[in-house]
């Protein structure tokens, strides 16, 4: 850069291949990153206000509309939080069916991101459509895997997108054992496809980029976490979901319509598949631990580029877990447990495909919702993404702007940000001055 060079602003239109709409702004002065902002400009959607005055029975269906990719996560956090308020605990086959439904969402959501959004970055293609000519088999495999995830969603949720069969206390209708068993051959095929997908991504080139994250994820005494557990981190955090707001603080920054979250007194943290995996490696079956190792993953993964491998591993886990649940399934006596509303406050966190999803509801004695608070995973990761990008860009300033932009887009996709959820990515501006 020469001193007399003018301000340079480079603009690309909406960044493709992320969920929702947003932009990234990068201000470079000389050899320093002066500012970096993940600008989320999708209008805020006011879901929490929309829930006020509604019956508790409506919460799973209203909140499912927050995201078309992970509606089940919203339904699960909603029903668990309300059940927590009413002192109800759903156990046995109903609990298993919820876990199975969540497995369907993990398979569909992760496969979509791995195959259609993230893989083209590693292989140097502009999009999945460009990649499909040379990697037909990989794309077909992705479509097939997603379809199997969708089969679970259809059977248990009533339909694939925005399922309508989840209620506080259980389900409206439960599947026949025979209907579940019909999924078995598809899931066995999916397990093999997931293995092939992991093998494919294990062959990609991964940049050396390691970060000392504070990983935050649920931890359960026995299971790899989906629906329940304590909120834990690799840096001494260990709380119940009801203490979430005492530890996590949300704040508004002018450049984003999604609130930023930070841990009080500690700053940014990181939720999602890498956090779940790194905090719960010991909860994975030995067979899946072995697959992780053969794919080049260590038990604590601190390289965000390798998140694609972790997602693949979670797809494999979800297939295995779905098979296990179906094989040992005995139908529950009733599709739902009896629910008795009361004036109370309930809290829950579940593990959405993109990470920890917190819900809180305050209800009156009839179960009307007086207040709701929802903290999605992408909101929680925004600050961390900005910090990682600042470090990443600082090491790549010598790159021409066009290349720098491509690299930034790739880096952002490592986090699978769901801007639809966090309000909603992406346009990238580079402002470079001497």
């Amino acid at each position: 850069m020469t001193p007399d060079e003018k301000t340079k602003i480079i603009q690309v239109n909406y960044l493709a291949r992320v969920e929702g709409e947003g932009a990234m702004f990068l201000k470079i002065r000389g050899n320093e990153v002066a500012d970096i902002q993940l600008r989320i400009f999708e209008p805020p959607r006011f879901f929490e206000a929309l829930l006020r005055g509604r019956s508790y029975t409506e919460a799973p269906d209203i909140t499912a509309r927050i995201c078309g990719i992970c509606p089940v996560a919203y339904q699960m956090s909603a029903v668990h939080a309300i059940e927590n308020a009413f002192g109800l605990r759903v156990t046995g086959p109903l609990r298993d069916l919820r876990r199975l439904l969540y497995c369907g969402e993990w398979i569909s959501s992760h496969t979509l991101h791995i195959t259609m959004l993230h893989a083209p970055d590693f292989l140097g293609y502009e999009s999945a459509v460009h990649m499909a000519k040379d990697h037909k088999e990989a794309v077909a495999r992705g479509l097939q895997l997603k379809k199997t995830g969708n089969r679970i969603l259809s059977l248990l949720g009533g339909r694939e997108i925005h399922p309508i069969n989840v209620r506080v206390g259980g389900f409206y209708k439960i599947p026949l054992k025979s209907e579940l068993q019909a999924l078995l051959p598809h899931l066995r095929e999916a397990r093999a496809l997931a293995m092939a997908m992991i093998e494919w991504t294990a062959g990609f080139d991964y940049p050396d980029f390691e970060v000392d994250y504070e990983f935050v994820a649920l931890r359960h005494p026995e299971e790899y976490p989906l629906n329940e557990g304590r909120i834990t981190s690799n840096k001494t955090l260990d709380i119940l979901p009801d203490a979430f707001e005492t530890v996590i603080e949300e704040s508004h920054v002018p450049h984003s319509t999604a609130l930023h979250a930070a841990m009080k007194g500690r700053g940014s943290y990181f939720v999602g598949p890498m956090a779940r995996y790194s905090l719960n490696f010991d909860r994975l079956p030995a067979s899946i631990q072995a697959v992780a190792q053969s794919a080049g993953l260590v038990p604590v993964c601190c390289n965000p580029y390798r998140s694609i491998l972790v997602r693949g591993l979670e797809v494999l886990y979800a297939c295995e877990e779905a098979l296990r649940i179906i094989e040992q399934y005995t139908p529950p006596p009733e599709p739902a447990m009896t629910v008795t509303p009361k004036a109370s406050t309930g809290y829950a966190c579940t593990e959405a495909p993109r990470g920890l999803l917190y819900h809180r509801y305050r209800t009156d004695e009839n179960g009307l919702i007086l207040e709701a608070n929802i903290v999605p995973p992408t909101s929680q990761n925004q600050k961390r993404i900005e910090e990682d990008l600042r470090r990443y860009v600082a090491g790549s300033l010598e790159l021409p702007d066009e290349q720098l932009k491509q690299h930034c887009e790739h880096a952002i996709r490592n986090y699978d940000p769901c801007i639809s959820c966090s309000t909603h990515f992406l346009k990238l501006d580079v402002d470079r001055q001497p």
Partner: protein
Amino acid sequence: MNTETINTEINTGQRVIGIGNRHRGDDAIGLILAEKIQAETLDHVQVLFSNGDPMTLIQDWQGADKVILIDAVSVRDAVPGTLYCFHLNHQPLPAVINTCSSHFMGLNEAVNLSKAMGTLPEALIFFGIAGHSFGLGEGLSPPMAACSDDLLARIRDALKQACYPIGTQTSPKVGDPLMHEFSLMADLMKKIEQLAQEAEAGKVTRIHVKLGALAHISADHFREHFTHATQGTVAEGARLDVETLTDTNDPYAQDIVLESIEAV
């Protein structure tokens, strides 16, 4: 609505895929028409039902020679029951046709992906039927119900035709893109009248429009409709300049852009 399980390896021939949501008023029309085709048990015609997820549709149409997709569409100012027909192998759906799509991928992207994978049927034909109301649990609207037999006849006709030759730009002969122009013109006239009113003009003397390369209407065809549409309006007798664009990558390639009007 569940998508039927199919083995894409062995199913060739013709396939009809009804798309929609049974509980959302006129959005059920694609499913209802597909059901009627299914009841006729035509040889070599397989019928599937879909909620419209484009990634699933890629798998649904794979392996067949000719596929007809039937879906309700929302087109501003269109007469309910208006049938739009597009040969997706040769032309994308124009922006004026709104189908429901998730954030990530729409029908046009699904067609491109399928083409890149080499799984696009030789003929993939989209029948979009303009809906009137899409409310929860409403059932078909009376105007939609009234024309469903006629729509069914058109789909039957399309099925009877042999495969469409690859590489040609001919639309299937099922009534052309019926009335498509009507809604376009209605929209354009509304805008022209509004502009004239704002300018406090009594008469519009000249109109300049640009036709996008993928606008699905020729300049001559446009002129013809324009003459009809302007009769009795402030723009009757106005000179019409039509500029036909050729860049298919232009962001407005699928649109008709009103560039300017002159009024007195």
